[in-house]
Every structure is written in C-alpha cells, then in structure tokens.
C-alpha cells in the first residue's frame, strides 16, 4: 500500500461542514459548504446548525446542563471518572499531570466510538488535513512504502526538493535531522519527516550497495499534487478519454470540468473515470460531478444523506440529478478496495442511477460522512465527527461492519494483476539470494517480476531453482548488470525500476484494458 509522505491521515473523509467548523467567531456558520448543503434541502441543515450552537453555549456555561433528563447518569459517571482520575494522579508511579489526563480522556472518547473516521485534530493536524483536499501539500516530494516497518522511497517526484538533493528510489530512510531512526517504526519516521513549509530537514538514507549513510539536506515546500489527471488513449482506432480523480478536493470539480471539456473537444468515443485509491473528499464536489452525467429522474436521487438531529436520525435528504440528456458516449468507472466514501457515492450513483458499468473490485465500504466542529472551549483545535450516513440511489447504506451492504460492487469484476499489488524488493543489510535459497518475501516477488517481464515461465513460489537463475542472468545481461545469477542490491534496484515502468503502461493495467474493450467493442 503506497502512501504519500504528507498524507498522514488515512482518514477517508467525506467532508460535510456543519456550521461551527473553523468559524468559532461566527456561530451562525454562514460559510460556503453550509450553503451548498442547505441549497438542496432547505431548512434541516440550518436547524441543525442552530442546535449545535445552542448546545455549545450550554457547554461553555456548565458542561452538565444538557437538560434532557440524563443529569443523574452524567453526575454519577462524572464521579466515577473523577475518582479514577484522582487515583491515577495520586498513585501511579509515573506521576503524570492532570492536564495530560483530560487530553487522554478526549482521545479515549474518540477511540471508544470505534469509528476510525471521527478524529480530534490539533491545529497543525487540521491544517494538514485541509491540505489533503488541496492541489498541493508541504513536503520534500517523495512517496514512501512501508517495507518491514522501514520507510523505503519508491518514488522521487520530479522537480522536488528531494530530487534536487539527490535522494533516489530504493533509498531507505535511516536518519532525520541527525537522529538515528533505525530502531524506530515506519510511522515514527514518517512523523518527523513531515514539517512546515520553508523549514529544512536533513535526511540520512541507506542506499543499496553503498556502505555509508548518505545525508542530504532539503527545504520543505509546496509540492503539486493534482487531484485530477487526464489523457486520451488511442485504442483499436478509437479515442477514449481517461480521467483519474485522486481526491474530491476544493478545486477538483473545476479541474474535472476543464479536463472533460478538453476530451470532448477531441471527440472521444468513450470515457474512463478512474476512482481507484481515491479515499473521498467533499460531498459538494461529488454532487457537482455527478450532475455532469446523470439525467433528471423524479423517482431516484443520485444519493441521499441522513444526519443526527436533536438526537434522532433525520429523514433522508435527496440529492437529485438535473441533466436533460445523457452524454453521447458510454462511461466506465474504475474502483478498487481503496475507493472510499465520495468515490463510492460516485460509483454507486453511476451504476444505480445512470445504469453505467463499474469495473474493478468491491469498494472499501465507508458509508458515513463527517462534519467539522470548533466550539470555543477547544481553541484552535477541531473536531471531525461522523455526523450521518449517505445512501445509494436505491436507499442502501454501504458500510463495512454495520451497513445494509458491505461494499459497492462492480458490475464487471476485474482484479489487478499480481504485478500491481507486488511490493518492491528490499534487501536489508545487502543480503543476497542465490540458487537453492528459499524466500517467500523476496525470491517469490522476484520470480513473479521475471515472468511478467518476459524472462521465462519459472516457478514463483520462492524457491530459487536453476530456471530462476537462468532467467535472472538474462535480466542482468539485458540491463548491463554483472551477470552472476544472484539477486543482489543492484539487480533488485533494476527490477524495482522495471516494475514501476511496467505499472505505468496502461496496456498492463487489466482494469483499464477491460474498460477500453468495453468502450470500443460494445
């Protein structure tokens, strides 16, 4: 599973802002997001905002003045809580301060919800979360992969500080700002590489085949991270438009519209919309995007939402389509198991409302939507809470664990080829593998690569037999490597590079090829 260095939150978020978000001084919450929500369904959301503000006022006064008859429970639970707090402060051998316990209790409240999508953000976490919805983020410009709990660089972004400083694909991060992180976890290291724009970071890496640690200093800057990428694929004498949507961010709708216009001007015969690995984003963005394709239908909403209002789940708010006619070409949506939230809203609407095909694997299954809250007592912090659910056009709640259905299911099932899920080869301590060795973790993926790259049809179970040796020698010979039939670090590096090239070729991508076949041979 690839991870961009700056997207620390694997929170898949469908952002619906409810009033108080980031506007502590504007309790009526008149911000854009809110208007968009209201625009569709009149007063419900507005009422909700007012309730929210009233409650917050109560909290500020007293915190226990919730006036709905549960005071007794509140009081006895508060006593229990206070008793435990007192014991922890007085008797635990670590002698921890009270303030820290309240923060821990807040974290405990969230953990107790058993909902990975509700979070308490401090100011800098909130900022990073916001960045994840923009078209750039602050970083050094590398993609890293967690291999055996080590951060291994799998891509250095072109034109990035990391590229200028000389970091390379295959480097393993060992030091940050002079501290040795070899005994720390992947996430610990990731946490210190991240920082503010304009600050310097010194990264030490272990490079395969190089004995000493290599140190490079770079300045963190805004890295372009476009949410929409598009191109035309010529296939079978036809032109097919391809748009990849990485996230449903602030500018995604505009960028998507521009891309679509460009493709239509080029007279495409079909369109592929790629939602793979897209973990969601803003509800307003996906609403606008669906309206580019779906045709007015009084019976069926594109999707609907339900929220907790006054402690009760509201009636569904229906989001309706508005076009008078469909586009004059067919559309295929690609999904995988990491397509979540707004991606699932999109895929299920295209499927159930538009009757379009969805290609790939069952989606992640995140049927909740989050709202932001910043009441005065939390200061610069922010609460990001699952306030409701979204439902597909036919009213199904798709949520793994407790939904009516676990996933959005594709109409055409296609799993990626093994080459797309393979991890990169990693040889810790420059260990090598040769004839008669066994390694499921390393020799097996090497064998799968050699088969895919056309170096034979060898066994691929991790046993390094003589046919494996012959295939590896042929690969080494073709890539100007020392022909020794041994998997060493320079051979591993070349295999990893070949793997990246392989994956970048659309014709190796089974889901894209299936979509192209469907669109060009209807």
């Amino acid at each position, binding site marked *: 599973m690839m991870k961009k260095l700056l997207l620390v939150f694997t929170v898949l978020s469908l952002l619906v802002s409810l009033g108080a978000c980031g506007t502590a001084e504007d309790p009526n919450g008149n911000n854009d997001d809110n208007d968009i929500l209201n625009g569709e369904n009149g007063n419900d959301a507005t009422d909700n905002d007012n*309730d*929210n503000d009233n*409650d*917050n006022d109560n*909290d500020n006064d007293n*915190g226990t003045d*919730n006036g709905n008859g549960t005071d007794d*429970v509140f009081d006895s639970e508060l006593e*229990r*809580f*206070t*008793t*435990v*707090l*007192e*014991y*922890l402060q*007085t*008797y*635990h*051998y*670590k*002698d*921890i301060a*009270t*303030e820290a*316990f*309240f*923060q*821990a*209790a*807040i*974290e*405990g*409240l969230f*953990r*107790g*919800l058993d*909902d990975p999508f*509700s979070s308490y953000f401090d100011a800098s976490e909130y900022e990073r979360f916001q960045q994840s919805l923009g078209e750039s983020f602050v970083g050094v410009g590398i993609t890293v992969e967690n291999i055996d709990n080590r951060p291994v660089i799998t891509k250095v972004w072109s034109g990035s500080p990391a590229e200028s400083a000389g970091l390379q694909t295959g480097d393993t991060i060992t030091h940050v700002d002079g501290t040795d992180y070899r005994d720390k976890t992947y996430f610990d290291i990731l946490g210190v590489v991240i920082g503010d724009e304009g600050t310097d970071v010194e990264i030490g890496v272990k490079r395969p085949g190089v004995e000493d640690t290599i140190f490079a200093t770079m300045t963190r800057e805004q890295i372009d991270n476009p949410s929409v990428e598009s191109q035309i694929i010529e296939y079978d004498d036809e032109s097919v438009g391809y748009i990849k949507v990485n996230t449903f961010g602030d500018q995604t709708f505009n960028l998507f519209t521009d891309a679509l216009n460009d493709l239509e001007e080029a007279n495409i015969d079909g369109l592929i919309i790629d939602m793979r690995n897209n973990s969601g984003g803003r509800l307003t963005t996906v609403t606008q995007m669906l309206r580019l394709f779906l045709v007015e239908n009084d019976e069926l909403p594109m999707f609907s939402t339900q929220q*907790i209002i006054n*402690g009760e*789940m509201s009636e569904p708010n229906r989001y309706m389509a508005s076009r008078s006619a469909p586009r004059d070409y067919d559309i295929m949506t690609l999904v995988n198991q990491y397509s979540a939230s707004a991606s699932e809203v999109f895929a299920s609407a295209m499927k159930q409302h538009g009757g379009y095909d969805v290609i790939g694997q069952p989606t992640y299954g995140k049927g*909740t939507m989050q*709202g932001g809250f910043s*009441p005065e*007592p*939390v*200061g610069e912090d922010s*609460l990001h*809470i*699952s*306030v409701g*659910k979204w439902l597909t056009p036919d009213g199904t709640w798709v949520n793994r664990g407790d939904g009516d259905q676990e996933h959005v299911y594709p109409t055409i099932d296609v799993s990626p080829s093994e080459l797309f899920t393979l991890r990169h080869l990693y040889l810790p301590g420059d260990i090598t593998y040769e004839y008669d060795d*066994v390694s*499921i973790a390393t020799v*097996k993926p090497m064998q799968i690569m050699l088969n895919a790259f056309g170096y034979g049809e060898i066994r691929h*179970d*991790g*046993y390094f037999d003589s046919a494996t040796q012959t295939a590896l020698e042929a690969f080494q010979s073709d890539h100007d490597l020392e022909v020794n039939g041994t998997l060493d670090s320079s051979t591993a590096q070349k295999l990893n590079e070949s793997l990246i090239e392989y994956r970048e070729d659309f014709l190796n991508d089974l889901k894209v090829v299936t979509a192209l076949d469907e669109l060009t041979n209807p």
Partner: protein
Amino acid sequence: MKRLLILPIMLVALFILSACEDINLTPNGANQEEQARFETVMEILKGYHYSEPSEEDLWQGAIQGMIDSLEDPYSVYFTEEQYQRFRDSLGETFVGVGVTVENVEDNVVIQKVWSDSPAERAGLRAGDVVTHVDGEDYRDESYLDTLLAVQGEEGSEVELGVDRSGVDEILFMTMTREQIENPTVTSFVEVIDGKPIGFISINTFGDQTYDIFKDTLETMENDDAIEGLVVDLRNNGGGRLDTVLNLLDLFLIESDKPMFATESFHEGSIDRTEYDASGDERKPYEIVTIINEYSASASEVFAAGMKQHGGYEVIGMPSYGKGTMQTPFSHPNMNEDELHLSNGIWLTPNDVWVNHIDGDQSSVYPTISVERSAAFETFNIYLLDETPLRYDTVDERNAQLQIKLNALGYGDVRTDSYFDEATRDAVEAFQQGQGLSVSGEVDSETAIALNEAILDYRNDHTNDPKITAAFDFFLD
C-alpha cells in the same frame, strides 16, 4: 498458543487501600479549562455522532483513554465481570470447556483437549477447527471474536460446530461450561545418579499456591528424602506478592540484604519497604530455578531473590522484565469495578530495578544460560484445505515439518521450508515407523501423527534442554 482463559501478566500487591478515601478533585485554572474542553467534546459526540453513543460508553471510553495514556499495560480498569475472570486466574480452577486452542490463520483450532473435561466428554478432538458457536457461523469472524463467543458462565451450555479433517459435514456438539482444574503447582521426583531430586513447577503465584507448594515440598523432604530441588518458573506470568514472599522465605535465611524491596508512590512521595528473610538455616540441598523469557513479575522476584540473596543457580534464558507492581483500587463511585494501578516498583536484593522498558536492567539473567530447542517451538501442522505438503514445494508449514522430523530422529534435513528429496525421505521414514501408508506426502493422517509425536517428545522431560541442564547440575 493460548488457554481459553487469558492469564494476565500481573504482580498483584494485595495491600488494598481503605476503600472510601475522600475523593475530591480541586481543579486549578488550567484544569478547569481542560475539563470544560473535555465536556464540550463529550456533548458534541453525544449530540451529533451517527452511532448515537450512550453516555456510559462515552465515559468508559474517556476512562480507558486516561489509562491508555499511562503507556503501562499493567494498569487496567476491570469491569465487574472482567475482574471475576482475573480473580479466577489466581485460583486453582477456571470456568471453561477444557480445551487449549491455537490461532491458525485466524481460525480457532483445538490444540489440546483436557482429560475428563466437558470437551472430551462431548467428543472434541485436537485439530478440530471451531466453525460455529451456539448456531452462529463464525467462519468469517476473527480468532478473538470466536474465542470470546466460546467463553461464558459456569453451568451454561455452549454448542460448538467443528470442521474435522476427513469429515465432510460440520460436527455439532453441546457441552456445559464447568470449573476446570488448573493446578498452579505440579511436581515429580526423579532419581539422578542415585540421588532423589524434587521437581516443582509453578504456573502462577495464586491464592493457594504457597500452601500447596509447602505441602509438596514437605512430602518430598520427608517421604522422598530429596537431595536437590528444581523450581520451574517458565511461562509463569506472576501473581500475588504475598505468595512469592512466603515462598522465598521457605529457602532464604537472615542476611543484611532484603529478599526484595518495594517502592510505592503516593502523591509524589515514595514509601520503601524491605522484605527480610526470617529463616536461620539453609536447606541441606541445592536448589536450581528455571526461567525463560515469559517468566515475569513474581517469577522474577523469586529468581532474583534466589540468585542474589541465596546464591543459588538460575538456569535458562533472560526473564521478561516486569518491575512494577499493581494495587487494586475500589470505591463506591466505581460500583463493583476495580482499578488495578501500577502503584510502585520492586527491586532485587542488590537494589536493582528490573524492567524491560525503563528499568536499571531489562531482565533477570540466568547464571547458567540454556536456549530453548527448536522442537519445543514448532507449531502443529494443520491442513485446513486438505492439500498435502509435498515434494518440491515451498510452504511455511514445511519448516515446521522439517524441525519435527529432525527432532524425532528421522533425518538431518534443511529447515527453510523447501520440501526437498531429503525431506521426502524423512517423511517416508516417519510414515514407515508409524505404520502409516508410505507416500512421502504429509496428508492429514500424517500431520496428526506428527503433531502427536512431537507432543509426546515434549512431554518427555529428558528432551527438555533446560530440565536436563538442571538435573545435570546435580550430577557432580
């Protein structure tokens, strides 16, 4: 491997503090702000989270959050039921159906059926995979969820469905959960070089452990006239402080060092207590203590006391390293719940804090180091999909197979999970020796025979390198 009852690693110092101490949190300014922030967050979650969490659950989460922040796995908030289960673990019995289970690919697999248990009477067998509990299909559930469903109250019935190798249909059996004997002390006497040597193994330092140990020892001394003693504390996760105190006092004699010391915390100050030995005569025989990396807490108090205070040998591997002790707190505000808090630390006779995270030293180190043998570490082989292990394949289970074959004397084959010709020859030799059909492939029948053979091998203590080393000590 896991008993159906999970034994927490805990050293319980049973000084129960007066249950009704006056609790009065007097917040300073900073605390008031923090408390207001906390209560605001709680109100928002209560009012807006889609799952409509109950007030009790939210508060429980908050308490759990504070406890998690201690980063101390031994401080635990027990609900009444959890506390009962914890108490059970210190007794000589527990409630269950009498099986030891193993996690195989997230399946609950029966590793051992205890003799004369409800499971045995109902017909459960080692190797059975639990698929159903009380009519519910658990094949897609996790190991832990299945385990939790099997557990329950004494006297209640549970219906288990199991997938048995070679049987097409799921087998259903009903059994009643009952008190299962789980003695904390087991023993035998072995004659080594003409000298009777006593062997006593302690699983946990429970409520009756001291009395049983003392009776066992007296019998060994009076009836068997033992000339040496081995105390086995391997895999012993600890228990009560007063139990280990009394046990040490059976062997250690007055000295200027304490057997161990404790330091308890109270509002930033430290109360130190030293526990002195009271005996005046050393036992007329040598005593050897065996430990491994799972000997924790009270086991380490014992081993460190025997080593540093008594000058006795300790055999095995460095211990776990748990140097804290827990005190139970209860209070009317907490109803019947119990808070176990790491209230202090214990120190060895030489005043060393042994704690693997932040102590002076991370383990109690043996005086004679003996590693475990690979044969004692291997997992049972299960063929969940009935596909045999065979020549020219790579499979992680092949390594388990190869280690077993080597230990049982059927060869000296590679153990890297590649099933080569030598492995095939060894499998054939094993099948020949067991009277099985000789195929060179490990099918279910062969796998079960191998699992049983290795169990017999382990039960023969002459194969146990640490016990052998302990007995060898008495050879001189």
